[in-house]
Each structure stands twice: as C-alpha cells, then as structure tokens.
C-alpha cells in the first residue's frame, strides 16, 4: 500500500522502547552515550528528553557493571534494557551475561525472575575492522538461560523488541548495523512477535534457505536471481535464534528436500552447524543433498573494504551455494 506507515529499523527499535516505557514504569534503559546523545547509532534518540535521566541513564564505560546493573535491577523487580554499544563488547561483559544473567534463576532453584533485555549492534560492512564487526551470536545461543533475537527488518524489529522487553527472561537483542537505515512498514500501535517463532519470508518449493539478520535480505535478492534459473527458494528467517523454530525449518526442508543455511558469522562453529545438524537429524530421509552452510571464512573481519566485501557472504555467494546444492546428483 502506498500510504502504509514506513519506519527505519533503528526507529522501529526506538519506538518499541518508547512504547514499552510508556506502558510500564518499571522499564528503564542504561548504557554508554544513550542519554543526552541518544546512542551512537541513534537507537535511544529522544528517550532521555521524554522520560528523564532517571529512566534513560548514561553509564561509565563499564560493560560488566552495565550488565550487572541490569541483572541486579531485574532480579529486584525492574525491567531493564541495558545497551552494549557493539556486539564485540559482549566479550568484556560475558561473565555477567553467561555466568550471572543466564544462570541466576536456575542456580537459585527457580527463585528469581530476570526480565532483562540486553541490546547490542552486530555485523560487518562498515569497515569497522576486527573488533567492531563481529557476529558472535553462536556464543550466546549455546548458553541455557538466554534468548537471542536478530531481526532482519523494521517490522520484526519492533515486534521482537517489544517481546524482549515484555519477556520474563534475559534476552539479547542484536541489531544489525547495516540494517539500521532499512525502512519498511511498521504499524504505529504496539505489537509483539513471539520469541521462538520464525517466519517464511518467501515461500518456495525447491530449496529452503535459512538466513537471519542481514543475510535474510541477501537471501531475498539471491532468490530473485535464482528464480530466473527456475529455482524456487523458500526463505526462512528464524528471527529468534534461541529458542530456534526447528519445526518451521524442518517442515520446509521436508517439502523442498534441499537446505542452505546462511549467516554472516564465521562458518566454523557458527549457529549454522546447529541448524544444519538439526535438519539432517530430523529430515534425513527427505534430503536430496547435504545441507550446505554459508558463512564467513575462518579469519577475523578485515578492515579494508577491498577485503571485507569478499569476506561477508552476500546474495552472490548464496546464489552459488544454492546452485551447488541443486546441481548435486
């Protein structure tokens, strides 16, 4: 529709936070430069002006204490949103994420509720080099107690971020830096998308492409290209990586008999291994070819655009991967 409301991915995030802060006085935000400045990506823009410095808190450069602030405030009854500017910085705060936030409830025998949302920005494509471009979701998805979300478009961003804030468990919401400016239809009213429910971005019958975050969009481009060859791709965006919508993925593969899993993260040890393994475990007899995984090669993210553009998977690599799978006899 020509007159549908459009919003950028970054503003969809912002709107979800704003609406939840309006709805629930226990929601607050804390992070570096998110207050007066609105966050380095503008994700928290305008929120301090609206809700005050007590609810939109500028913090020191102290990622461990930022997450700890969230853990302690969540377990004593608030609903914190704490921001780690770049996903690479989860490494600085991982103890609070993995050993505290994720495990507290369990270690306490269930006697704790942690409605904590950790937000961060992942992915490459900005020539930001090896410490500001990583996709480290595999580290988080392996940790019982966490939920991990990576939206691929503005609509999902708003709905998933709303769900994260409303969720009674620690969630990690990973924005993709290269999608911040992506615009799309986003309803003004508040809505949430259930965590753990994937989405068929494009129905198809020949091959199932499982792709998330920016790669879901690359897969859509690839599918158009492949359609010209008569290859009809079904694109599944799991949206939430933990918990993973295994049913959706497996039932698609049972239909198409071919699967390609794509992520921007390093291929070795990435979440693609989990997804591919589940597919072959649960749809073994339906597979006409091995599940193919597409991911970054085994090196840190290089700085130079001349290298990085070949490092990150894209529509072209996906086209090639799908062709290989389909060509197999």
């Amino acid at each position, binding site marked *: 529709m020509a007159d549908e409301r459009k919003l950028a991915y970054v503003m969809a995030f912002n709107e979800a936070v704003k609406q939840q802060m309006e709805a629930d006085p226990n929601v607050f935000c804390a992070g570096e430069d998110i207050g007066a400045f609105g966050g380095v990506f503008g994700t928290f823009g305008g929120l301090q002006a609206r809700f005050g410095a007590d609810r939109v808190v500028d913090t020191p450069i102290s990622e461990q204490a930022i997450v700890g602030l969230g853990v302690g405030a969540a377990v004593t*009854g608030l609903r914190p949103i704490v921001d780690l500017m770049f996903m690479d910085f989860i490494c600085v705060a991982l103890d609070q994420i993995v050993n505290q936030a994720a495990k507290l409830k369990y270690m306490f025998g269930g006697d704790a509720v942690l409605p904590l949302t950790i937000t961060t920005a992942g992915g490459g494509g900005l020539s930001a080099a090896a410490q500001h471009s990583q996709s480290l979701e595999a580290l988080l998805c392996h940790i*019982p107690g966490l939920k991990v979300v990576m939206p691929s478009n503005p609509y999902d961003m708003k709905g998933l971020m709303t769900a994260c804030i409303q969720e009674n*468990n620690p969630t990690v919401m990973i924005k993709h830096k290269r999608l911040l400016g992506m615009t799309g239809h986003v309803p003004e009213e508040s809505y949430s998308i259930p965590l753990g429910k994937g989405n068929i971005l494009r129905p198809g019958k020949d091959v199932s492409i499982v792709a998330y975050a920016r790669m879901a969009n690359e897969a859509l481009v690839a599918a158009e290209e492949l359609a010209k060859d008569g290859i009809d791709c079904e694109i599944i965006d799991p949206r939430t990586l933990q918990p993973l919508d295994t049913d959706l993925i497996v039932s698609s593969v049972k239909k198409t008999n071919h699967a390609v899993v794509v992520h921007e993260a390093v291929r070795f040890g990435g979440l693609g291994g989990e997804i591919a393994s589940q597919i072959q475990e649960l749809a073994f007899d339906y597979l006409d070819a091995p599940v193919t995984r597409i991911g970054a090669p085994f090196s840190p993210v290089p700085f130079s655009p001349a290298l990085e553009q070949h490092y990150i998977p894209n529509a072209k690599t996906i086209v090639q991967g799908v062709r290989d799978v389909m060509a197999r006899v």
Partner: protein
Amino acid sequence: MDLSVDVQLDLHRRMVRIRLFEEAAGRLAESNRLPGFLHLYVGEEAVAAGVCGALNDDDHITSTHRGHGHLVAKGGDFNRMMAELMGKATGYCKGKGGSMHISDTSLGMLGANGIVGAGSPIAVGAAFANRYRGRGQVAVAFFGDGSTNIGAFHEAANMACALHLPIVFACENNEYGEFTPRDKTMAITDIVDRAAGYGMPGVIVDGMDVIAVHEAAVEAVERARSGGGPSLIEAKTYRFYNHHGVQNLGLKYRSDDEVAMWKQRDPIFTLEDRMIENKAATRDQFDAIWAELRADIDTAIAFADESPYPTPDQIMVGVYTSMTGAQ
C-alpha cells in the same frame, strides 16, 4: 554509639548461628557428606552479623563464594540451607545451586556467587532499583580483599559512585585470596585506599569486633538510605579454616602463630566476654543461646538427611521463567 543490650544480643545470635552452621557444615564435609566445594565463614562472623544487623528485611545483599555466613546473618533458614548443601530437593535452590549459589531472594539475599567480584555489579543493580522505587531500601555488596583486584569490583564501585546510589561496599579483608597472601597480589595494605579513587568515603574497622563493624555499618547504611551515596567499609578479619574445606590442603601458606593469634581474637567470645564484663549478659544466658541454636542445627541436619534428592526430571525445570526456550 551505645548499643542496647538487645542489639548486642541480636548481633551475638547472628554470629553464633553462623558459627554453628559453619562448624556443622565443616564436620559434614570432613565425613564426605557434602558434595562440591565448601568455603567456610568461621572467624569472620562479626562482618556479616554486624552489617546485616544494620539492614532491614527488604534491603538487599550480594555475596561471594563464602556465602553461608551472609545468608545466615540475613535471616536464612537452617533447614533449607543444610538441605541445599547436601543437594536435596528441599534446599533453598532445590539442589541446583549448592553452597556456592545459596540464596533467598525473599530475604533480599541475591546469591552466593562462584565468580570472584561478580556480586558487586549485581548489588549496584539492586541499589539502582531501590532508588528507582524510592522506598528507601539499600543494597550491600560483600566481597573479599582479593576480589578488589578484579575488574568487576572496580566497575561496580565506580558506577555506584557515578550514579550516587544507595549502596554499601563491605570488604572482608582476611589477608588472603585462596592460598596467596595479599602482599603478593597488591602493593597496598588497606583496601580502603581504593575508596578515594571512586569518590566515596571509606573506613577501616576491626572485623573481629562486631560492635565496631555494626556501628560503621549503621552509619554507612544510614548515609545510603538518606541519599548520601555509596561508602566502603573495610573489616580486617581472618578465616579460621582453610580457603575451602576445613583442613589446610597441600602446602602450608599461613603460619601456626598467625592463625593462633587471630583465633585468640574470636569475634564471638570477645563479645561474650565484654558483655559479661559489662554485666550486659551472663554466661548462663550465652550457654542457653548456644544450646538452643545447637538444637536448631541438629534439626536442620536431620531435616536435610531425611529430605529427598531431586529427581532427574527436575534438571530442565527453572532454566526459564516459563519453559519455552529449551531444546
């Protein structure tokens, strides 16, 4: 400050409860009836008791690997504690946490913690929430001397000061981190020297004197409660047993003389002697208290012994608040 006899007896009771619980746990551990690691608080009772005696029920504390003392001082239930140490289903954590994660959120005790330093940032979060709600609650972070060398402590202390939160940092300086003496791991003698670097007041107290600890804690808690911000209390204390378990393991890392010197300053007996001297209490009274609490311990051991172990179907329970995320 002149503490009333009631308050003194309250602090005494908290200390004796800790002592008895820990001695019992130590005996059980020595006869291999407790699984896992056990870090005893014996010798340091005055710190937990003196500080928690200054708190309300709805104030929060975070703790360390050496956490039983803190939970007892905050009002922990012997039965559920002992059951937890034995890994029973009736324990505080239903057998999932054990000694290193013992907790009671209803008492504001946000968990013992197996990661050195990790409790302090969580206390900062609790303090933030307390101010946010505006009901005058405060938070206390307990931590060891050794833990002040780790980044999480530093970040927590600084953030608490930057945000001017209602929190007290309570350091148990027992001069060792595990088997290594303080002077090998820092070039300062007093942890309190770190307070100025965050912009908060700090004070050293005799951690074997529960009255001294308590008075400092009352002041710090009052400061926090009334919007005066964070402060640090360094209590000089000593653990009478080993870092974990009871006996010294392996090489000897503390001299007999040193241990003996500190044991002479036993915080409980010191208080009892002083109160008797001041005619605030009698030996008979104390004997009765010990006897009463000893009976509680016996009850707790029996309770724990008779309690069932959790069943394997409980493994996946309690990972998420509503079970949706598991595979």
